């Protein structure tokens, strides 16, 4: 079982969600986050004053999947989130010890 975390451009969320839906991913958690990588921030000017805004808004997508489906999911995310320009984001994959569905108390792969 693995957790896939993807940081993507906010406007790509719908496309990524649809792409994951097509390969049968049934659930995900999404949060609005801020941060920076190589893209850096931008400058805002209010009358005479300039401010550098370092943290840009991004979307973080989290999904936990059985090992067998991870590659397909990552491929779908990369294909749908890519614009080819700086700031497209990153995907992180990490092992997950266990998962439990609260309603039924199912464990492991059948819980995710």
């Amino acid at each position, binding site marked *: 079982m693995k957790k896939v975390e993807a940081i993507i451009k906010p406007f790509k969320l719908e496309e990524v969600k649809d792409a994951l839906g097509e390969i049968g991913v049934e659930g995900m958690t999404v949060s609005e986050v801020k941060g920076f990588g190589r893209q850096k921030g931008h400058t*805002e*000017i*209010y*009358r*005479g*004053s300039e*401010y550098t*805004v370092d943290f840009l808004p991004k979307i973080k997508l989290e999904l936990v999947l059985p090992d067998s489906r991870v590659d397909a999911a990552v491929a779908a995310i990369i294909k749908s989130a890519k614009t080819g320009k700086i700031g497209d984001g990153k995907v992180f994959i990490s092992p997950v010890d266990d998962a439990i569905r609260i309603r039924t108390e199912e464990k492991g792969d059948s819980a995710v």
Partner: protein
Amino acid sequence: MKKLLSLIAMAGALTAGTSFSSQAADAPKKPEPTLEQRIATVEAYINNTDPTAPLKAKIKTKDKDGKEVETEAVPEGLVTPTSATSGPGHNGFMMVCAALVLFMTLPGLFLFYGGLVRKKNILSVIAQCFGIAGLVTILWVVCGYSLIFADGTDMIAGVLGNLKFSMLSGVDSLPNTNYSYWVSHNVFSMFQMMFAIITPALILGAIAERMKFAAILAFVALWMFIVYFPLAHMVWGINGLMNGVWNANASIKAIDFAGGTVVHMSSGWSALVLCLILGKRLGFGKDPMQPHSMVMCSIGTGMLWVGWYGFNAGSAVAADGVAANAFTTTTIAAAVASFVWPVLEWIVRGKPSVLGFCSGAVAGLVVITPAAGFVTPGGALLIGILAGVVPFVACTSLKKMFGYDDALDTFGVHAVGGTLGALLTGMLARNGSNANLATNLKDKVTDSLFQPLVVEQLKAMALTIVLSVVGTVVIAYIVKAVIGLRPTEEVERMGLDVSEHGEEGYHGS
């Protein structure tokens, strides 16, 4: 049915007859106005002129030496049904205008300023605006109105009125003919009070996010007595020494339609001085201090623009042709400046900003304020262009050059704009726009750019700056010595909302 009606009519005539005859028995018969006189007073209402003029006749009286002299006066007791009352149209217009001017402060100005501060200080701006509204109203009723607009002998000749109207006594629903033939005296007083509220509230922009609430109230109370009341009397009081339009004996024959000197220069120059004495916000130049809501700021700007029609058109104190011209010039200047400012940003920095549109609109409104009722639409267009350029340069370059922390640009917009407006009013006032210019200013307004009026305007500008700067220095140091100006560092870092008012503007879900 017909019978019944005629019976009632007869009874009415009978009672009217008896009351008339009993009156005639007690008192000398009142003079009756002629039909022409009755029509003429109604015409005076339509034209916003003196309703008693058509009632005047040559009357023989004895002077103090016992010599018989002939004077023009209204015969005693001669009135028409409309000669001693307020005119509903002018009165209604002025009540709406007064409400519009209050709307500029609550909520216009507090949204405009409130959007520009950081989240943690939004409520402090709102509290300060409300606080000033209440405080100034108290001062106004007690003696403020009287010190500006009372007639009779001045306490300080030409500078400060007297206490005749203190507690607004005698300020009733009949017109005060020194200022208007048709608007109720109490409506006029309330209209003027809204100006007295917004003027000190404008100063808040320069000192935002870092002054104790108690210190602000103390400062404003003293500032009203030392700067506002005298300045307003000088410019608008019937005996005022700078009231060029109405006071034939004014020593400075300047003009100020709706408050270029009284409102914008006074608040703007005082704001600069106060922000210098107060010092910069903690972290100024290092910490991010972006506006927390440009949406709120834009809403406030729209409200200011709409409210400003009450401010400028209402300053005609009648729903007449002068008001119509002021309404027109106000629209032109505001729209043009709100366009020019962001276009300059576009050229200089590559992007037209929403704050640019807002700043331009307010700057245009500020600069047209003293000129609104005196200039032509063409003049207003020129004023709009300059209002988009000059305050823009002041806000973007001057502040950086000298490094003062005029947090929300009260100086850059109101002092620079007000000063520019006072000067341009001198250059662009035209007889064709306002017939009142011919009353006392025939030799000053010659319908050319460098007419003699310009010199009078320069004198008024100098006096306004000196009074505002000196007054503010004195008051600021008094308040600093007695209660202190700045909150503690901890309070300022935490934000004035929680620490001074015990509330937060925004809560999470």
